[in-house]
């Protein structure tokens, strides 16, 4: 008990902020899974994205935080909400709640957890401690990120954009109305 009290006394304001933000993140992430209504789930997921953006800001990555909000909370989740609003929510969808799907989701989730634990426990993946005196305050800002993306990581960056282009062309192909299709 005294250990926890001394631990809380030694924390910096940033530490308190981190703890509060983490609690919020976990709460909203749990509410995504436990909510009965899909709309509440989506709103919980949006709250989770906001908390993650807060974590990015604490890690000095302003650009990443803003882009996370614009892309995930602002565009993708709007589309999610859009789709869910079209579904008939009054009827209970029994098909997605069979024992098989529950087993499958447990297995997938368990594998993901094992993977994450092994990654974080690996010696080579330990995050190096930042030296406060030599730390460059501009590390996570746009200019540095842009320079890195267009010099060291140019090939993965361009490959990822080609991947997006392929996905977009595929979406247009699927959405195209063919000659005999009926009009809605």
């Amino acid at each position, binding site marked *: 008990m005294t250990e926890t009290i001394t631990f809380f006394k030694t924390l910096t304001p940033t530490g308190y902020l981190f703890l509060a933000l983490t609690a919020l993140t976990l709460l909203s992430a749990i509410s995504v899974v436990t909510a009965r209504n899909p*709309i509440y789930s989506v*709103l919980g997921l*949006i709250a989770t994205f906001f908390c993650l953006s807060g974590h990015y800001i604490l890690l000095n990555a*302003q*650009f990443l935080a*803003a*882009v996370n*909000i*614009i892309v995930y*909370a*602002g*565009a993708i989740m*709007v*589309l999610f*909400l*859009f789709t869910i*609003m*079209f579904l008939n929510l009054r009827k209970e969808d029994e098909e997605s709640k069979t024992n098989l799907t529950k087993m499958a989701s447990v297995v997938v989730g368990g594998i993901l957890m094992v993977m994450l634990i092994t990654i974080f426990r690996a010696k080579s993946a330990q995050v190096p401690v930042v030296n406060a005196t030599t730390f460059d305050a501009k590390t996570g*800002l*746009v200019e540095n990120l842009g320079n890195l993306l267009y010099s060291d990581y140019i090939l993965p960056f361009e490959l990822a954009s080609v991947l997006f282009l392929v996905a977009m062309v595929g979406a247009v192909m699927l959405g195209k109305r063919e000659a005999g299709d009926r009009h809605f």
Partner: protein
Amino acid sequence: MDLTILSAKGIIILAVFGITLLIAMYSTYAERKVAAFLQDRIGPNRAGPWGLLQPVADAGKMFFKEDFIPSQASKWLFILGPCLAILTALMSSAVIPFGDTIRFSWDSKNYEVAVQAIEINIGVLYIFGVVSLGVYGIMVGGWASNNKFSLLGAIRAASQNISYEIALGLSLIAILMMTGSLSLRAIIDEQASFFEWNVFTQPLGFIIFLTCAFAECNRTPFDLPECETELVGGYHTEYSSMKLGFYLFSEYINMFVSSAFISALYFGGFHYPFMDLVGGALENSLGAVAGHNVATLIGVVVFFAKIFFFIFFFMWVRWTLPRFRYDQLMNLGWKTFIPLSILNVVITGAGLLFNFKYSTWLIAIVMIVLAVMSSARAPKRTVVPQQTV
């Protein structure tokens, strides 16, 4: 940070907040006056001199009306909807630079504070993020009402906002390429001389941005989410009392913020022609501190004049143009604006390679020529002589 700078910043933040609310409040009055002027009527003139107390009377009426929540509605989301709408609307004015700096000395130290609530180096992204969140208020409220008309309004709002955000962002990218910074202050400082205002270097981007701003604010001719001929009241059909008031109010705040954003991005913000001469003369005659402050004040007044012009422009368009049909709206967004803005980005990049800033006039000239040609080739409308009875 210094406590003096913090308190100065606090005063500026409070002032920005208050001015935003005040301008939004009087925009409702101005809207009715402009509508009256355009339709040859008088407009509100009973409450106070020239009807100036009309917004106060309206707000009082809104507060005292019955606050009704439909029995089948999802209660908390029904309340959350207008909260989100007004929250996102009020958040966006935080990063707009309203003026240059103010100099003052306190406790025998000299300070220089920028007239801006917060200066962050990703100001453009911040506004873009807040704008993209604005649709949640409408969607959540429309869905929670448990009314088919509200749901249709919410869905229209969502698809319209997503479609026009893309063109909005792409037209912004051309400006970011020219400035090389995401900070709004840096973008304004780039436009110090009159002929380098972005409206002259990016004429096409300006038109795309302006139209997309109309669509993002749900203003006529893009006000399909609240189209009363088809959807009763659109997403706010079930709302009453101040909840409805918040939805309507957030629209006016969004209008103010978009006007400020347009003037900052394309019309040089607080810059005006011969600004250096005026500033220099003032500093010579009044001293470095007082002269600089007066010059800043003139800049702020000029910025607000630009903002008021654009608010008027929003109203002018509303009472002049009819509404689009929904498929026309989607075709305009996806098949016209997105290709045009991508072309704009490419041509701007090509121009920047050769250090030529005015390259996008090429597209503008080609478009004008095409428009003239197509109107010349269009079949002439023959005037049928009226038959006298």
